[in-house]
């Protein structure tokens, strides 16, 4: 029962095969027995069972929707009323939000049952979930490997079948990279599609909430429930959300698939490249047409991203000052000392590194050379995509250059760590929807992700292509050993 997809559970709940309470209880027990993954920061068993029994009542009355009674886990940077929200940081170790994030509220209204809060890189800064105050999360496919990050806890939860779906956030690849490394389907919608209200900000102009699941079909259903305009977020888009599920079964024959030569370089591991080539043949087999495209400025993505994201973060994280909530140092003689000690104790090394970079690039004398220049590059990168999408409907490539790497391998080499985002962060810079779906395994049995980037506001096409791919492959059905 635990290994089913959200929609399979949905059918089972409606068919009275088992109740949401039974499912919830089973998954909570499973989660406790998998504590060694360190995928959770907080388990919310009591609330979960309450929500599940409420869902059961709705289902019994025939009032449930497709997601009613389906368990999920939230990344621990979505604010949840009465349940602590840590962002993987000591500075928020004791923080309990008095309100729910819009996304949390919407999924709750859809009847979903929250099992707990998932581990993550502190404030979503990282690609391995090693930067958590609560320790690293392990990859269910291989406990010595990272699950990716920053939404690594969420990815591990779904890969280990502790919940069929988990929310994540993606600022430079934080949903897609862990989805790839854990063999999942994960989507980051267009910037503005999902409200950021209550999603603790890392880099406001890049952050976007999304979902990880076992199938793109599940992604479509959950994304549907959490998308749409929110007057509390001035950057959310006031546009109707298409019925994603409705288009999943469309044929992709004739669709133009763009292959950017910049995504098929020597930097990509040969086994990954091979799997992506095979995926492309699958798409061709379904009638899609391959088109070569250029994204000439994509090499600028990483430097551009690592100027803009820290710049925004340095300002966004200024509120964690020990004055109103969160950690405050115990001894201090004046306010400056209080700030310095609180923040020195409260933040981990990667967060500090980015805050320093961010403050630096915004300083007088450097602002033009870094921040302004990066904004210009961002525009060029977005223009590349606009031109490319004149020739194609979707762009594909590898999600990451390699499969999951060993825990500890890149912790001392931030640049190597940052290069994990090389294919993913340009979609954030351009605000485009993008997803990763399972596309094979390397010889060590580690999952490989196929990356799909869509036109602005066109989640429909990438979900459709992904679903059609999954109807013709079974990579997404593989379960890591010991979690079946």
């Amino acid at each position: 029962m635990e290994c089913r997809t959200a929609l399979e559970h949905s059918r089972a709940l409606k068919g009275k095969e088992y109740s949401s309470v039974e499912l919830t209880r089973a998954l909570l027990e499973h989660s406790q027995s998998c504590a060694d993954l360190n995928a959770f920061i907080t388990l919310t068993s009591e609330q979960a069972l309450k929500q599940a029994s409420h869902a059961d009542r709705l289902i019994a009355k025939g009032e449930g929707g497709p997601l009613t009674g389906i368990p999920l886990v939230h990344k621990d940077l979505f604010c949840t009323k009465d349940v602590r929200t840590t962002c993987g940081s000591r500075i928020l170790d004791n923080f309990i939000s008095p309100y729910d994030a819009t996304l949390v509220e919407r999924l709750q209204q859809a009847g979903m049952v929250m099992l707990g809060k998932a581990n993550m890189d502190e404030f979503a800064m990282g690609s391995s979930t090693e930067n958590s105050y609560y320790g690293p999360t392990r990859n269910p496919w291989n406990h010595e490997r990272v699950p990716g990050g920053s939404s690594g806890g969420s990815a591990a939860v779904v890969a280990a079948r502790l919940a069929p779906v988990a929310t994540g956030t993606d600022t430079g690849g934080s949903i897609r990279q862990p989805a790839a490394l854990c063999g999942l389907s994960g989507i980051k919608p267009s910037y503005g599609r999902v409200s950021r209200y209550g999603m603790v900000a890392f880099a406001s102009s890049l952050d976007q909430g999304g979902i990880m699941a076992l199938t793109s079909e599940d992604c479509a259903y959950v994304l549907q429930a959490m998308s749409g305009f929110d007057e509390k977020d001035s950057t959310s888009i006031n546009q109707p959300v298409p019925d994603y599920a409705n288009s999943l079964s469309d044929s992709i024959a004739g669709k133009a698939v763009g292959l950017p030569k910049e995504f098929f370089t020597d930097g990509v591991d040969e086994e990954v490249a091979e799997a992506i080539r095979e995926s492309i043949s699958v798409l061709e087999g379904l009638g899609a047409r391959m088109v070569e495209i250029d994204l000439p400025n994509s090499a600028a993505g990483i430097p551009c991203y690592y100027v803009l994201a820290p710049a925004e973060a340095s300002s966004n994280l200024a509120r964690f000052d020990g004055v109103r909530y969160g950690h405050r140092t115990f001894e201090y003689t004046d306010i400056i000392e209080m700030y310095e000690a609180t923040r020195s104790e409260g933040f981990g090394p990667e967060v500090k590194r980015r805050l320093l970079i961010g403050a630096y690039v915004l300083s007088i004398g450097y602002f033009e050379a870094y921040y302004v220049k990066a904004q210009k590059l961002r525009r060029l990168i977005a223009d590349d995509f606009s031109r490319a999408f004149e020739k194609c409907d979707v762009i594909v490539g590898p999600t990451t250059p390699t499969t999951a790497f060993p825990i500890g391998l890149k912790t001392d080499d931030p640049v190597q760590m940052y290069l994990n985002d090389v294919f993913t962060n340009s979609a954030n810079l351009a605000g485009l929807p993008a997803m990763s779906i399972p596309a094979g395994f390397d010889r060590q049995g580690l999952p490989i992700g196929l990356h799909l980037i869509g036109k602005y506001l066109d989640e429909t096409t990438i979900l459709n292509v992904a679903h059609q791919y999954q109807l013709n492959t079974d990579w997404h059905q593989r379960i890591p050993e010991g979690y079946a």
Partner: protein
Amino acid sequence: MMQWEPVIGLEVHVQLMTDSKLFSGAPIAYGAHANHQACPVSIALPGVLPVMNLEAARLAVRFGLAIGAKVEKRSVFERKNYFYPDLPKGYQISQYKHPVVSGGSLTIETGTGDRVIGITRAHLEEDAGKSVHENFHGMTGIDFNRAGTPLLEIVSEPDMRSAEEAVAYLKKLHALVRYFEVSDGNMQEGSFRCDANVSIRPKGNPELGTRTELKNINSFRFVEKAINFEIERQIDVLEDGGMIIQETRLYDSERDETRSMRSKEDAQDYRYFPDPDLPEMILDDEFIEEVRANLPELPNHRKSRYEQEFSLSPPVAEKLLRDRDTADFFERVCERSRSDPKTIANWINGELTALLNERNIEISDSPVDSDRFTALLDHMADKTLSGKMAKEVLMHLANDPSDVDAIIESKGFRQITDSSEIERVVGEVLDANAPQVRQYREGNQKVFGYLMGQVMKATDGKADPGQVNQILRNLLE
């Protein structure tokens, strides 16, 4: 001796008359219990986001149109980053490179004629909270009720040349924001706050001297004193061969002096950048035109209309326009009254204003409303009342809600306008004052006034002086 010329520019923070904060729905009523108007956005909880209050934009546009400035269709909110306990987000959202209003002016009257003071820009920003030091046993409490309150910062050009001009500008600006209902202008509650940039230079030298910024000058009187103190201080420094340091100085009203607060070397790098949580503020023509359509008549326009339509002198018109309620009162009376507009204006500026000042109230709370005031002046126009009587009736009206006719009847205020009655009294007065009559007829015009006075005295002041004048003259000749 060197002649020094002061150069002064002012930055005024005006609190906008909105119901709620600039980026959240929290109310901004004055005097609420500490932190009772501090919503999650006000205290910058994790995950909260700002949403622009359109009413604040509307008021900023209204101000821009009122000073004939350019209203920018595109303005940008940026983050001003610094740490301070009463600044909840660690940054203030403010317009920096792209303000909503730029390039307007105000005309002030000075001893040497009108002067146009340039207004460089006006931009929207949010206020911070307030640190509270009392009752916390050596610690500091913070009240976030103010945090996020919408402010319009109005920055003038360095166009003022004396403390008096600075005060004239401030008063004009204060009247304007109140007239246009941009702000209540309440200085005690901090709705109208001023910082001054002051420098001096040798008279005739076009280059600007090093300036200091004076903070904490929150009354017109303190502005004048602080600037004058600072001008004298700078003259002393320069004449002693010293140099002015660019710095921020705090005005201490108790000691009447300014003290150094921080120098330019301590100036912070605020690391401004556009706030990614807020789209650029785009105001379309429709929005701006709607604000324009709802604008009250501009004071300058109204003033020239008063001068042309009603033949009022500029100072009289100016005085009527000291606030919108007074001007509106004047126009209401003009519309209905048979009296001449000049008389109406003089009565409002004179008698009525004296009455209001005595009671320290605004015209909107006047015990004599425009209807009774109109009736009073009309009884003067139809000669029922003399000017002197009308003044007395006004005093009665101020304490008695009855209508004007009732007061005239009950108190016996009625002018004698019957010419035969007046002729009778004049005859009696002439009989009783034969020597003066002779003097007049011999060419001594001065006694005419004496005889007039005798007639008025004989009628208890109730005779119509115009008629008395004419009849007396006829009978004497």
